[in-house]
């Protein structure tokens, strides 16, 4: 399933087709990640003490790709891991129990590191809030930053991203799908109109 839970808006001619409107293709995703990689290097003194933690499902391959960019650009090897936030969600009681994702924190631990959280879509900001809570139980990073492939707006919490692949103004009824080769066999970001309001 490729539908991001942080998604949903208003009918436009393209987006109402079943395949949706393609917002980013594989080339654009590649370029966005390359740019974010450069920005991370700029803002963290060449990637010193940086750790990338992807939020499952699609944040994890994105974090791995970013790490590969950092290695290609400046030859820095940054630790990569995953941070599952299911057990920290604030909406657990609204839906049946969810399957847990994998949390894998690199052996060095997060204490004193600059942790960059990586996710596919930033929407309400609630996932990021949960991720901050989860980090709190693992250790005390020096700083926490946020990198997202798509920022679709509609924040419900005072949270902002540090690195954005694409700012995508959406309506709440629209649905943003992120497809990645690792999980879905292709790279694309598409915009859909949901038949009914989901939230």
């Amino acid at each position, binding site marked *: 399933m490729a539908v991001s839970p942080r998604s949903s808006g208003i009918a436009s001619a393209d987006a109402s087709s079943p395949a949706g409107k393609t917002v980013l293709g594989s080339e654009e995703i590649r370029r966005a990640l390359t740019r974010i990689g450069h920005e991370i290097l700029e803002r963290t003194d060449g990637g010193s003490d940086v750790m990338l933690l992807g939020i499952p499902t699609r944040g994890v391959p994105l974090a791995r790709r970013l790490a590969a960019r950092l290695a290609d650009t400046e030859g820095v090897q940054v630790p990569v891991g995953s941070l599952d936030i299911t057990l920290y969600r604030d909406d657990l009681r609204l839906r049946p129990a969810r399957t847990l994702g994998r949390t894998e924190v690199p052996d060095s631990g997060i204490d004193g590191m600059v942790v960059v959280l990586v996710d596919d879509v930033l929407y309400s900001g609630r996932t990021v809030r949960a991720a901050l809570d989860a980090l709190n139980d*693992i250790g005390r990073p020096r700083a926490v930053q946020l990198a997202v492939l798509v920022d679709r707006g509609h924040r419900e919490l005072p949270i902002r991203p540090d690195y954005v692949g694409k700012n995508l103004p959406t309506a709440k009824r629209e649905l943003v799908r992120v497809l990645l080769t690792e999980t879905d066999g292709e790279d694309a970001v598409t915009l859909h109109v949901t038949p009914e309001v989901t939230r």
Partner: protein
Amino acid sequence: MNRHLISAADLSRADAVAILDTAEELARLAERPIPKLPTLRGRTVVNLFYEDSTRTRISFEAAAKRLSADVINFSAKGSSVAKGESLKDTALTLQAMGADAVVIRHSASGAPHRLARWVRGSVVNAGDGTHEHPTQALLDAFTMRRRLGRLEGLRVTIVGDVLHSRVARSNVWLLRTLGADVTLVAPPTLVPVAVDTWPCSVSYDFTSVLPRSDVVMMLRVQRERMSDAYFPSVREYSRRYGLDGDRMALLPDHAIVMHPGPMNRGVEIAADVADSPRSTIVEQVANGVSVRMAVLYLLLGGSSGPPEPSAQASRDGAGGDDWDRGRSRDARSTADVAAAGAGTAVRR
């Protein structure tokens, strides 16, 4: 996922695998400096224990506390049960206190099944009479999967007092659901009459089964449930059905030895076997907490209300099997349900 966990026989393959996978992730979190999770904050779990238990009660208590649930321990001794309160009245009291889950152990088979009709929260069976002990079977399956990497096609031999063992019963159903082949080995007097309806084979010759076993699970001789002479002497039982070093040597190299505890060292299992590297007895206890956390999370972590297909099941396209499916397959348990329903007066 359904609201209750009463019998391992009710679990679909998708549900069972979802519990084991969840337990796997939770076990990894247990290694953190702060293993506590906020997931069940504000939920109340009542441990309702009508029978003595150390590890199961502590295990459920630890599991609930790690998920930040409030835990109320209730044991029959020193409570109003000693004054003659029936199970139903106790259940209504718990309901009034707002218990989100009741973990019950009872000497009457079927007591959790009855309780489930009287309380609004989830009921988790922590062992009822000689019927079932589903979380023990889940932690056993979890331990096997961790040690041997799979369950499908695994040859599991369960040895000993099958007649009185709720652990054996739950394991037979769960392991069958998960694709393992179960062989029961016991003296003929300790094999249930209806065993031919169980999805397993039966042998009376322990030694011949050993070379073909990936897992040997030894059961405790439950003398507290034995009113008749089921075997001539403990020594003879131990000779024919006990696991000692010589018998263990017949096992394949990768095989593991399990025991649900508490052990009678020198009766069903020799001390050197219990302490050998093949033995998973201590691991089983640690895994018990992870598995019970998974069960509590899957029962209480989501919305309460009508059961919906679990996320895993719908993703696999397997559909959502109801945990209630096929309940009380056992004639024995149905008979005992009546006794449990009538309350403590009958049991005395």
